[in-house]
């Protein structure tokens, strides 16, 4: 069974590069354009990992993470967020909200997969 990964980002190019990389590795990829959009996938279906951006319209990443951590079905699933080197404060905030780890932008596919390996088998 291939793993299902949900990607949430408002930038289409980021979404594409991430899904391309992951699909190449044999993962099933679901895509949401912002927090609100992402929630519609969290309807009880099996998801193994969520990768989300922090800055997004409608519902931002931090709020999404907090939201997910209240849902029984997804309380403990790994969540990675995308961030840049300069946003150290955001990192702490996201961690406190319940994120598992992060991926620093800009990233190459290898770095993305390395981060993935830490939380998903």
């Amino acid at each position, binding site marked *: 069974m291939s793993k299902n990964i949900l990607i949430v980002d408002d930038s289409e190019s980021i979404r594409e590069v991430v899904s391309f990389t992951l699909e190449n590795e044999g993962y099933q990829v679901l895509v949401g354009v912002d927090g609100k959009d992402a929630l519609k996938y969290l309807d009880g279906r099996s998801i193994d990992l969520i990768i989300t951006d922090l800055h997004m319209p409608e519902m931002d990443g931090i709020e999404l993470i907090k939201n997910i951590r209240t849902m029984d079905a997804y309380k403990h699933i790994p969540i990675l967020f995308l961030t840049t080197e300069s946003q150290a404060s955001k990192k702490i905030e996201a961690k406190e909200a*319940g994120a598992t780890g992060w991926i620093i932008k800009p990233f190459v596919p290898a770095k993305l997969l390395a981060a993935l390996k*830490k939380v998903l088998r």
Partner: protein
Amino acid sequence: MDKFKNKFIEEATDNIEELEDSLLLIENDTENKDLIEKIFRAMHSLKGGGAMFGFSYLSDFTHNLENLYQVIREGKRTINKEILDITLASVDHMKTLLTIDDLNNEDVIRQHKELIEKTQNITNNTESVEDNQSNEKIGSYNNVEEKSYYIHFEPQAEVFKDGTNPIFLIDELNSLGETMVLAHFNKLPEYDKLDIIQCYTYWEIIISTKEDFNSISDVFIFIEDQCKLEIVEIADFDIFSNDEIVEQISVLTQDSEDIGLPKIQEIVKKNSTVKILNKELERVIANPNLSTPIKENTISSIRVSANKLDHLMNLVSELVTTQARLNLIAEKSENSELITIAENIQKLSRQLRDNAFDIVLIPIETMLVRFQRLVRDLSKELNKEIIFLTEGADTELDKTIIESLTDPLLHILRNSIDHGIESPEQRLKLNKSPQGKILLKAFYSGANVHIQIHDDGAGIDINKIKRKAIEKGFIDENTILNKKEILDLVFLPGFSTAENITDLSGRGVGMDVVKRKITEIRGEIELDTEVNIGTTLTIKLPLTLSIIDGLLVKIHKTHYVLPLSVVDKIYVTDHSKVVNKYNNMIVLDGEQIPFYYLREEFDLPESTQEVEQVVVVKYEDKKIGLVVDEVEGEYQAVLKSLGKIYKKQEMISGATILGDGTVALVMDTNKIINRFSQTIVNVKQNNI
């Protein structure tokens, strides 16, 4: 000296084979450092050994080649097709150099010079002024020295809650280098107080890696603020290479308590002086082939001459025969002590037999290199793209069987490449992928080994075979044959479907020779094909040649042995049920089974017994009954050939000597059933 020379030739042949193998692998994986190392290593030992045992041409030649691979190893050049082609040609040349003492053949000299020149050109193109001898320096092997670290990793209890799995992190550490991981569970609470989403485990890890401190701490980056983490460098070398340290640490780990950093540091300190000495020693030994394998030096195999093995097998066979005699005499004597001893000896000799057999079994892997090479060379020559896949390469067979199997298999492969797989253009037209596939698959099936060669090529048109057979007068135009029978025609001497025989398949061996060779080793061959889908050749082989487990039966006054591998069940039947039957069918366990009354088939007088026994054997996918006077029991038959005079008969595959000195004949049930069923068909045809 000659003795050593032979040993070197043996070793060099292995080296060359390994070299060839690695080269074929690296073709698809040109960046693979391990393979490059392997290639380099093989060349280096060829060079060193060659110089020592008087193969100076080989040594010089390889030295030259080694220079090129030194450049590649240093990353100044990547392997490309040109380099590979030259190297492979060089490998062939090395084989020649191994067989001749002096360069006196003009072709060889020309080849020698040409290859040296080509190799030098490539080497010099990349290297500026650098000294070619640099490869003699040792120490450039591991540019980055391994270091060893101690890690204490204790995640907070809540770590699972935000999706972290510490095991993944340990796995990641594992991928960085050699590790020793100790999980400690002493913080686990009582069962009824256990909260499954809390983490109670903590770890102590010792890792040796070429990665730096940062890459190790990076592993824990996501949870560094959620765990107690201690990473300390404990040694500037790979502590796993020091057996003393490893042993002392493992002693510590036996009690489930923490090892703790101080204890480890103490052990390392105590032993590192020894380690430094070892290191110096390694540096002194200039030949990397002597210095690197210190770890691998524990001997796991030895080389034994084939003659000795044959001799061992003969002795075991004799022992089995003698043991049968002992059994018989022990039983007659009714001396219980003697019987016990005889039974023990029987058990031991059976074990000895199985063990001795195991020794002479070798994996078919050993012949695969030749096949890979053939596929590569031939497909290039014919402008075809072919992927050669193997499955079950570790399947083991008797050494002698493998030896006699190589030629037939080479021929079959040649056929598949030449006639089977179509050209890329043609394949595209047929909606197939331009790359053809040839699969060599080996697997066990009962007491047999099956080897299949499958290609997804053009297949063979059955009608074409039939037309050809009629043309050549093998069959009558009116003969009605099923698919299998038609396909079997291919194995007749003088049959060849190739419209125009290319020089490749026209090497004088036809499918009839293939079949003959396989029959010689008691094997069978079958062909299955589908036009445009592909062809599959299945070869069924016995595991070994000299001893079989058999069922001893008696017919009239003679003993016969049926191979136990084909026997399905044994039934008792009334004499009246098997004689004078019109349709030769008998109902056993509610199943109708065709049978042969062997007394009748062997032209022996009818039995006066009231009860006889039916041995049901497997024949192709069917069950056939063979009626014998009585079944005496299991018997290990040491096969002896019947000699030249009886070579033409097929029904008896050999003879064996029973405990009382009489001879039993070993039946080839397939051939027997084949033969008798044909006679029936013939009789029927004559009647019509």
